[in-house]
């Protein structure tokens, strides 16, 4: 309950990791895939991305890192990996299983 500005956006600005603007989705994936606590998840992602933990919430740095590593960005250019393509790269880089990526491989007989 609660309207999106008062609830979701307020928390995103006050306390969130920024989602795809930064590395929020990547840190979330480590909680999902490995049940990692927040500090461990942040450190794991930072190590894999070869950045500092502080960089994970910086949209300027993370946009460049995500573009270089083909992890999907908010404003993708023509031809740049996005959505499912980006999730293939995220699974490989973070060394985790992503359910829909595995399903895609199975359905496409990859």
């Amino acid at each position: 309950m609660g309207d999106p500005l008062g609830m979701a956006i307020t928390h995103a600005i006050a306390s969130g990791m920024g989602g795809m603007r930064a590395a929020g989705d990547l840190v979330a994936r480590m909680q999902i895939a490995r049940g990692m606590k927040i500090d461990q998840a942040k450190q794991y992602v930072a190590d894999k991305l070869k950045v500092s933990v502080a960089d994970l919430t910086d949209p300027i740095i993370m946009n460049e890192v995500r573009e270089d590593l083909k992890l999907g960005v908010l404003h993708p250019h023509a031809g740049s990996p996005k959505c499912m393509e980006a999730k293939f790269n995220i699974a490989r880089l973070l060394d985790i299983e992503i359910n829909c990526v595995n399903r895609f491989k199975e359905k496409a007989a990859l």
Partner: protein
Amino acid sequence: MGKIQTRYGDGSPVELSEDAVRRDLEEGTQDAAQRGNIPVLSKEELQHLFDIFSSPHRFVGVAPGKEVVLSYDGTPIKMSRTQVNVDRLQCLQIYEKLMGADTLELGYPDYSFKPIKSMVTYEQPLLEQVLAVTTAPVFYGAMPNLGLYSQPDGPFPNPSELLPQGKIDEARASYEASVEHAVRDIVYVSSALYESGADAIILDTVGAAGDADFLAALMATEVLREKYPGICVELGMAGEFVLGMHGEMTYNGERLAGMYPQDQVKAAEKAGVTIFGPVVNTNTNQSTPWNVSRAITYMKACCEVATIPIHVNMGMGVGAMTVHDHPPLDVASRASKAMVEICRLDGL
């Protein structure tokens, strides 16, 4: 002596003296400590809360480095309630691309497993499309909602009618039968959506119908984890205290009725829950400082014993958020900052 602008739990504004704010902070933590048999917040923590509430800024946020992961419940419903006419797929794209969401959550307007069971084959292709056009993890969420299993909505006698008649055994039998059916429905729906590629399943508002509701969620989690060892299950509670509507239901030898968050999380861990979402209800007659202090006391005790990630529920009316559909940003941002900075939690 300065004055501090804050609000009651219903969101209405109030101006309090500094002494009154300090008193509310102390009474809030004492209330939680007495009810939950847990420690009160330290002087330093209460001072930190006072500093947050005495800040003159209309909006505050956590210190850099303290940010946490956000997960959601009923995401598309919030968009449709405001009558923004976008499909659920576009709703999740908006959350991902425009609202800084760390995770996404697909859910049906009738946000319960039972009604979804009969039309899950319509939910699966939508989820598969969502997964094809988004990057962030996609959860699928619904409630066990045991109330739907008793008459007139379900097959079993209504415990709320039996209990006032003194038919305790009959009421308990109804709850026990409901648990069995609810587990079956939760597992059926969750299996279908997991096999369609969902990153995680959210069992939301767990315990809304009391201890039987909580037991159904725990048992369903056990089954799902055995069936799909890699599945992520997030279990979010309905209230701070498990109501003993049955009264004698146990899980792993522990009575569920009366459990507070620090005990609930241990049951959740035992069942195989990946992420736990504890709740503290907001008291509308008390100030936000009182509610924040009280909520944080419970959540801190829960976080200290948890070995799995904790995403504290901070939606409308819980986690010291105001009981109003349009949470004022001043107290909402203060509650958010305070909760994250004092509890060693992993998300909201």
